[in-house]
C-alpha cells in the first residue's frame, strides 16, 4: 500500500522530532529545571513513538518503548521521583530508543544485550522491590493461573445453580482453555437493561440491537413496564429493558463483545436459550434485574495483577522539590522550548515542501543568473550604450534576478540546530568512552545556513568535538590537580561573520602541547629540524597529513581520521579551519564556511591567459605593487612590503602549473588574502577583470576534485572559469617547502 509507505515516512520524521523533544525534556530534568509538564512531555514523546511503532509492527521498538513508557508513567504519576540522576539514566535509555528507531528505519539490528540491560534497569527503576506485575501487552501474570471459569458457581450470585446447566464459558486465556461451542447455529437469549450512565455517554441500545441483528436471526421484545407517564419522566433516565432471541453460529464471546463498551453501564445476561429456561423465565423481570452482569474476565485478570501491593513511595515531596529546582544551565532553555514547540505546533502556518522541488528551483534560478549575465555581456558586445534602454532594462533584470536568488536561497536556509542536536549524545558517549567528565554548552543554534552546507557540517563538527574531549580535555583528576573543576566544558557555537558562517568548538582543556607537536612533526619529517615557527604555526601543524599525536590509535578520534581529513573536507566546501590554543587553558577550533554552496561573490582575474574567479570574501584588498615594494629572497621566492610588514608573494599561475616560472609581481596585480591561520599572502595574477556574482558549479560532481580549485562557473560569455581556493593555493606553495619563511623575513 503506497499510502502506508508515505505514512511510514511521516512516522520516522515524527520520531526525529519526538526524540529531540525527549532529549530536550530529559536534559532539562537533568539540569533540574524541568517541571511536571516537562515530565508529561517526555512521557508523551515515548508514548507516541510506541503508538506509531505498534501500527507498523516494529516489535523490538515497541517492546523497549513500552518499558520506557511504563517508567515514565510512574514518574509522571509521582510513583517514582524525578531526580537528576534518574534523568541521566533516562538519557541513556533515550539513546537506545533512538537506536531502535534507526534500526526500524534501516532494517538493521539493535544490540540485544544493551537493550536487555537497559530494559532491566528501567524495570528496576519503575519497581524497585519487584512487587507489582504491571498489566502489559504480553499478558504476563505470574501469580494467576489461567483457568476456564464455570458460571453458576456460588460467588457469581443468584442464577439458580445447576438447573440451567451452563457449559464452561470460553475465554481467550494464554493456557489452552477448552474452546466454546461448535460453529453450528444456536439459540441465545440476551437480556439487556441499560443504566442512565449508558445514555449519558451517548451510547445507543438501538445500535447494539442492530449489531446483534448482524450476527443472525433476531427477535426483540421490549419491556417498558417501569416506564412512568410523561409528568414523572426523566427524559434521560433509563426505564427500558430488552429481551432478545438470537439464532446465530457466533460464540458467546462474540455476542458479549457487542456490548463491550457498556458492560459496566447495564445489566446484561447472555445465555443459551432452552425451553427449561423459558419456564423459569420471570415475566416481571424482577429476578433478572437483580442478577449481576456477567463478570468481565479481562477486568478480573487485570485487577488480580494490579492489586499486587505497590510499595509506598515516600519520596513524593522530594520529587516535587527535585523537579522544580531553580533554572540553571543554558540547556534549561529546553523546557520553555518544548512548551513553545507544543504551542507553536497549533499556531504554525507552514507548508511542507518536497526538498527536491526547492533544489530544482535553485538550479533554475542559478541558470537564470548565468543567462542574465550572458545577455548583459552580449548587449555590451553589440555596442549598445550603457545608458540605452536595453542596457538599463538589463540592469533592472539583474537586480530582480538577484532578489529572486536571495529569496530562493532563504527558503532552503535552515538553522544549524539539526546538526547541533546530535551532539549531546556524542558528548555523552565520548565522555564515557574516555573516562572524562564533560558538559556541552551550545550557542547560536538558530543560525541559518543553506541546506547544502548543513549536511556537510555534521562530520567536521563531530570530529572536532571528539578531538576536544579525547585530546583536549584532561582526565578529571588531572584537572582537579590543576585547580580546574573535574568537569570539562566543550562549547559549540555558530554565528554569522563577514558573510560566512563561523562554527567554533572550544574546550577548557590543557591546550596544545606545542613541544610535543613540534617534535612529532619533525620526527615525521613534516618540517625541518631547525624550523622556527610561531606558536600559531605550530598549532596548525596538526592539520598536516600524516599527523597524529596518539601514541596508539584511540578508539575515539584516531581511527584513520586525522585533522587533515577534516580540513580537506572543509576546504572542499570552500571553507577554512584554524586553531587557537592557550596552554593550560584550552583550544578553540574555528571553522568558517560560505553561507551557501550555490553562489559566490567573486573577483574575476586573468592568470596566464586563463580566466579564474577568486572568492571575494577571501580578499582583503587588491593592489598594484610597485617594484620597490618587492623584495626578492632568491630561491625562497619573493615578498611584498605591505604597511610595514612583509607578505609572501605567490604566483597563482605558477602554483597551478600554468607557467614555468613565477611572474614578476610588478607586472601583474596582487590580491592580498588572509589565511585561515591569520597569516597573510599576496596572490599574484596577471590582471583583474572585475567583480561578479557567479553561480557555483561543482567540479567534483562533474569532473573530480582538483587541488587549488574550489569549483567552476560559467561566465557571461559562455566560457568556463575555475574558482580558486586561495588557502589551498597558499598551502600548495607552502607544502612545496618553497614558501618564504616568515622568520627570515622578520630577520631582514
Amino acid at each position, binding site marked *: 500500500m503506497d499510502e502506508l509507505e508515505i505514512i511510514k515516512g*511521516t512516522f520516522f520524521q515524527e520520531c526525529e522530532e519526538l526524540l529531540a523533544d525527549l532529549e530536550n525534556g530529559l536534559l532539562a530534568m537533568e539540569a533540574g529545571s524541568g517541571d511536571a509538564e516537562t515530565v508529561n512531555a517526555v512521557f508523551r514523546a515515548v508514548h*507516541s513513538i510506541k*503508538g506509531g511503532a505498534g501500527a507498523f509492527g516494529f516489535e523490538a521498538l515497541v517492546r523497549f518503548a513500552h518499558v520506557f513508557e511504563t517508567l515514565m508513567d510512574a514518574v509522571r504519576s509521582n510513583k517514582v521521583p524525578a531526580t537528576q540522576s534518574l534523568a541521566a539514566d533516562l538519557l541513556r535509555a533515550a539513546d537506545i530508543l533512538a537506536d531502535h528507531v534507526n534500526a526500524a528505519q534501516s532494517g538493521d539490528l539493535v544490540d540485544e544485550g544493551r537493550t536487555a540491560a537497559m530494559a532491566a534497569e528501567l524495570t528496576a527503576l519503575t519497581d524497585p522491590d519487584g512487587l507489582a506485575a504491571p498489566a502489559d501487552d504480553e499478558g504476563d501474570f505470574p501469580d494467576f493461573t489461567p483457568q476456564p471459569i464455570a458460571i453458576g458457581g456460588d460467588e457469581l450470585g443468584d442464577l439458580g445453580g445447576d438447573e440451567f446447566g451452563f457449559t464452561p464459558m470460553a475465554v481467550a486465556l494464554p493456557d489452552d482453555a477448552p474452546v466454546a461451542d461448535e460453529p453450528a447455529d444456536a439459540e441465545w437469549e440476551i437480556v439487556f437493561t441499560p443504566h442512565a450512565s449508558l445514555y*449519558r455517554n*451517548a451510547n445507543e441500545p438501538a*445500535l447494539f440491537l442492530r*449489531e446483534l441483528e448482524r450476527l443472525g436471526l433476531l427477535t426483540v421484545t421490549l419491556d417498558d413496564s417501569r416506564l412512568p407517564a410523561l409528568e414523572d419522566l426523566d427524559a434521560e433516565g433509563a426505564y427500558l429493558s430488552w429481551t432478545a432471541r438470537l439464532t446465530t453460529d457466533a460464540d458467546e464471546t462474540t455476542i458479549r463483545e457487542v456490548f463491550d*463498551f457498556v458492560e459496566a*453501564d447495564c445489566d446484561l445476561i447472555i445465555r443459551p436459550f432452552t425451553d427449561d429456561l423459558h419456564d423459569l423465565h420471570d415475566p416481571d423481570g424482577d429476578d433478572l434485574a437483580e442478577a449481576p452482569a456477567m463478570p468481565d474476565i479481562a477486568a478480573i485478570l*487485570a485487577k488480580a495483577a494490579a492489586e499486587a501491593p505497590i510499595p509506598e513511595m515516600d519520596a513524593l515531596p522530594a520529587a516535587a522539590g527535585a523537579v522544580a529546582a531553580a533554572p540553571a544551565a543554558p540547556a534549561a532553555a529546553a523546557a520553555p522550548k518544548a512548551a513553545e514547540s507544543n504551542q507553536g505546533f497549533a499556531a504554525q502556518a507552514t507548508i511542507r515542501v518536497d526538498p527536491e522541488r526547492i533544489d530544482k528551483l535553485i538550479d533554475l534560478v542559478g541558470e537564470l543568473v548565468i543567462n542574465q549575465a550572458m545577455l548583459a555581456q552580449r548587449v555590451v558586445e553589440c555596442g549598445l550604450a550603457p545608458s540605452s534602454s536595453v542596457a538599463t532594462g538589463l540592469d533592472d533584470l539583474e537586480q530582480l534576478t538577484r532578489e529572486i536568488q536571495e529569496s530562493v536561497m532563504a527558503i532552503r536556509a535552515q538553522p544549524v540546530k539539526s546538526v547541533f542536536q546530535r551532539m549531546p549524545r556524542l558528548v555523552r558517549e565520548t565522555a564515557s568512552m574516555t573516562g572524562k567528565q564533560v558538559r556541552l554548552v551550545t550557542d547560536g543554534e538558530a543560525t541559518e545556513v543553506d541546506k547544502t552546507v548543513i549536511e556537510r557540517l555534521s562530520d567536521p563538527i563531530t570530529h572536532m568535538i571528539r578531538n576536544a574531549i579525547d585530546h583536549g580535555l584532561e582526565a578529571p583528576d588531572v584537572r582537579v590537580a590543576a585547580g580546574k573543576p573535574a568537569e570539562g566544558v566543550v562549547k559549540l557555537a555558530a554565528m554569522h561573520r563577514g558573510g560566512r558562517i563561523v562554527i567554533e568548538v572550544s574546550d577548557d582543556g590543557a591546550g596544545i602541547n606545542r613541544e610535543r607537536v613540534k617534535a612529532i612533526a619533525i620526527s615525521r619529517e613534516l618540517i625541518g629540524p631547525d624550523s622556527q615557527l610561531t606558536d600559531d604555526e605550530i598549532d596548525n601543524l596538526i592539520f598536516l597529513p600524516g599527523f597524529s599525536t596518539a601514541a596508539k590509535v584511540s578508539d575515539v578520534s584516531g581511527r584513520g581520521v586525522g585533522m587533515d581529513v577534516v580540513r580537506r573536507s572543509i576546504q572542499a566546501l570552500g571553507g577554512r579551519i584554524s586553531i587557537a590554543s592557550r596552554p593550560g587553558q584550552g583550544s578553540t577550533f574555528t571553522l568558517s564556511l560560505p553561507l551557501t554552496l550555490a553562489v559566490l561573490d567573486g573577483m574575476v582575474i586573468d592568470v596566464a591567459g586563463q580566466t579564474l574567479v577568486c572568492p571575494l570574501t577571501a580578499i582583503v584588498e587588491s593592489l598594484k605593487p610597485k617594484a620597490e615594494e618587492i623584495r626578492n629572497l632568491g630561491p625562497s621566492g619573493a615578498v611584498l612590503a605591505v604597511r610595514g610588514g612583509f607578505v609572501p608573494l605567490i604566483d597563482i599561475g605558477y602554483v597551478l602549473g600554468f607557467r614555468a616560472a613565477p611572474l614578476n609581481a610588478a607586472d601583474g596585480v596582487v590580491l592580498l588574502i588572509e589565511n585561515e591561520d591569520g597569516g597573510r599572502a599576496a596572490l599574484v595574477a596577471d590582471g583583474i577583470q572585475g567583480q561578479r556574482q557567479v553561480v557555483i558549479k561543482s567540479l567534483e560532481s562533474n569532473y573530480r576534485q582538483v587541488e587549488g580549485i574550489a569549483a567552476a562557473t560559467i561566465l557571461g560569455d559562455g566560457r568556463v572559469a575555475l574558482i580558486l581556493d586561495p588557502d589551498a593555493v597558499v598551502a600548495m606553495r607552502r607544502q612545496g617547502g618553497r614558501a618564504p619563511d616568515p622568520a627570515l623575513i622578520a630577520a631582514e
Partner: protein
Amino acid sequence: MIQTILTVDDSRTMRDMLRLALVGAGFRVVEAVDGLDGLAVLAGERPDVIITDINMPNLDGFGFIEAVRDDADNRGTPILVLTTESDPDKKARARDAGATGWIVKPFNPEKLVQAIRRVAA
C-alpha cells in the same frame, strides 16, 4: 449522507493512519491536534463521531471529553478513545469522563469501523 468524523491526536502519524482507514471506509475526516484544538474545531463542525487520543498537550483526552459532554451542541455525539489494551483503568476513567467506547491501538481498519458502527447510526 456521508458521515463526518473528528479525529483528535497529537501524533501526525496516528492522524494519517486514521485518515487513511476512515476515508477508505467512506467517511469525511476533520482533524485536530489536541483537546484545545478539538474544541475549536467543534465550534464550526458537527461531526457524527469523535475519535480522540488520551495523552495530548494543552488539553488531554479526559479534559476534552468532559468539555464536549458539557457542550449543549455536542453532548450527544459519540466519542471513541484511542487506548492501549492493557489499560482497564484508563478505559474506566475515559468512561467516567463520558467516552462512548474505545479503539485499541494499534488498530486495524476493520476493528475501527466496527467500533464506529457500534456507536453511530
